[in-house]
């Protein structure tokens, strides 16, 4: 019954999408297409005839192609956030990032799968079914998430680069699992106009590619003020930022990232990276940032509360899924119940509970812990923080380095079993990525020895990351 209904919806969606310049290559996880790959990374592909997908033909990105996560608005096709609640949503505008890329000559070739509304770290919570990691030919391993489709697509050479969103590691974790470069900019660097919000104090747009030079080039195109996004860093702030100069750097190793759950291969990759850094003439120091240990609780308090607020707009009235229930009093409730996935519903309920009088003032406490974490990061970096007072600095480190993931990706079965046992288990991996998200730090994850190693710098000091990544990758 359910399968039949899903197939029917998929087919009608396929036909509509074709008319809008996109082709559904797989929908609801049931409709297969001979042209589609086993990864299920790209959920819509652009038709060549569609003028809205083609770039200007000239510009610094001429000759490149890109795929965007399906929570980033495009005029061509639909923008669903992998949620039934937006299954037929047609954006009347392009997100600023899409407009800038097309203006510089890059061609949009498709839209990528994700965890519904970006909530997840596996790309298994999607109405289109799970994305399978292309790195493993004979095993169904997860691609990471929530930008798993974006990472798998570039790993499978479907485009020169892709865009994802990173709220707590959603670009870096899939980049690590799929063996590509994943970059999360400083919070506020890249416009979020046209990005479907999940947690607005944390959301960023990130870039993924096999080639760090392309990531840098795309970053340079997107790194500009956008007045449409009120959280976008102003030109004045940008102009006041001091950048780390190339040369001999001091690299910090946060001891709170040396955790028991790191597997042996990950530790070997981290060690190899540190040896390379020493060979390149940099020096290493151990750093202690105590609030990292509280970062997971902080993140999931803030993110679920913000998600509960952001997702209250999906009411089935003006756009998105509307229930067939004809009882007007129940329209909103029925539409939300029928269209949100289980994980999204759980996070909304958890967020509302966290904010409620039954629970306590935990959002406020989490914001305070976040502030302490930001201050501690600021104390270890040499550069001044462009937004904060800097009198308590230790003036020691230029860059921090750690693994991006605890281990290689689990199989879909292993992931589901762990999650069923305790849903908090799916938060484990985030311990390595969430601290930089809470502090808004720019971070790049690069593939080293089969896993991802990430570099973090001071708030606003994005550019030096590409140089470090290039040096380590090429040494």
């Amino acid at each position: 019954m359910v399968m039949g209904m899903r197939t029917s919806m998929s087919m009608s969606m396929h036909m509509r999408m074709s008319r809008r310049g996109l082709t559904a290559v797989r929908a609801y996880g049931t409709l297969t297409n001979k042209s589609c790959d086993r990864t299920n990374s790209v959920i819509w592909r652009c038709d060549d005839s569609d003028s809205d997908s083609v770039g200007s033909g000239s510009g610094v990105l001429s000759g490149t192609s890109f795929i965007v996560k399906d929570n980033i608005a495009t005029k061509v096709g639909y923008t669903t956030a992998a949620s039934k609640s937006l299954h037929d949503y047609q954006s009347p505008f392009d997100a600023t990032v899409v407009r800038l890329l097309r203006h510089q000559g890059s061609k949009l070739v498709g839209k990528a799968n994700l965890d519904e509304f970006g909530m997840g770290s596996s790309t298994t919570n999607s109405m289109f079914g799970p994305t399978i990691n292309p790195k493993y030919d004979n095993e169904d391993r997860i691609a990471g998430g929530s930008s798993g489709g974006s990472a798998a697509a570039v790993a499978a050479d479907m485009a020169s680069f892709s865009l994802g969103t990173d709220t707590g590691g959603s670009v870096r974790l899939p980049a690590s699992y799929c063996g590509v470069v994943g970059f999360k900019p400083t919070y506020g660097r890249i416009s979020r106009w046209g990005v479907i919000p999940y947690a607005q104090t944390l959301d960023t747009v990130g870039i993924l590619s096999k080639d760090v030079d392309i990531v840098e080039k795309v970053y340079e195109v997107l790194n500009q003020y956008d007045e449409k996004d009120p959280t976008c860093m102003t030109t004045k702030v940008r102009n006041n930022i001091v950048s780390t100069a190339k040369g001999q750097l001091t690299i910090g190793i946060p001891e709170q990232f040396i955790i028991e759950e790191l597997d042996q291969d990950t530790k070997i990759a981290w060690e190899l990276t540190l040896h390379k850094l020493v060979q390149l003439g940099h020096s290493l120091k151990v750093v202690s940032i105590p609030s990292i240990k509280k970062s997971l609780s902080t993140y999931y308090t803030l993110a679920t509360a913000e998600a509960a607020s952001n997702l209250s707009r999906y009411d089935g009235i003006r756009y998105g899924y509307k229930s067939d229930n004809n009882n007007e009093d129940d329209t909103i409730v029925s539409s939300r119940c029928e269209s949100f996935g289980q994980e999204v519903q759980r996070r909304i309920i958890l967020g509302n509970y966290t904010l409620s009088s039954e629970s306590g003032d935990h959002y406020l406490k989490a914001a305070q812990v976040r502030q302490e974490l930001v201050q501690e990061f600021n104390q270890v970096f040499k550069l001044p923080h462009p937004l904060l007072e800097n009198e308590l600095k230790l003036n020691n480190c230029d860059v921090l380095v750690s693994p991006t993931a605890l281990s290689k990706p689990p199989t879909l079965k292993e992931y589901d079993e762990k999650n069923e046992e305790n849903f908090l288990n799916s938060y484990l991996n985030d311990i390595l990525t969430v601290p930089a998200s809470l502090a808004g730090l720019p971070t790049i994850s690069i593939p080293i020895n089969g896993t991802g190693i990430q570099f973090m710098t001071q708030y606003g000091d994005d550019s030096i990351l590409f140089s470090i990544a290039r040096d380590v990758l090429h040494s």
Partner: protein
Amino acid sequence: MLRRGIRSFSISIGTCQKAKVSQEVLSRDEISKLLNTPTWKVGDLMKTTEEDIQDVKVDSSIIRKMLKLSGLKEDVSPERETELIRALKLQMGFIKKLYGTGEEMSVRGKKSNDTNFRLMAEDHKPDTPLTLDILLAEIDALPNKVDPEKGEFTSSIDIKKLRSSNNPLFSSKSIEKV
């Protein structure tokens, strides 16, 4: 040498100093030993003991209130209700880790909650203080800033195209074109 490298952190500069940076530069030989000496276990955060949640009161009435607040159906099955009670208790056990040992979990209303830390320049280093004159000037300038992409012109966004089944009369008002 390694232990000294890890433990002999610089003395904090001020009373609020919590982060530390070791003074010694690590040699290659020390790296391996460092990475093989874990400082903690993340899995411990996920473990919630009965003691952690003994004060957490989550029952059927709270579940129904949360479902209502979330715009979701309140008449859930007993199995779903049990699942949600467990989820909220686990979440509270997890949130408890925000607080230090012996620190009381805060109760709403005990202190001001009108501040919130964000990474926005205007929260930390505001450009120019907002005055009534600036505010009025900004309001006067609004008509020149209407943007069709934001749906600020009449008919600049076709409500029917947001969902084909939409009744065009069923729409919020747009700003009249000036």
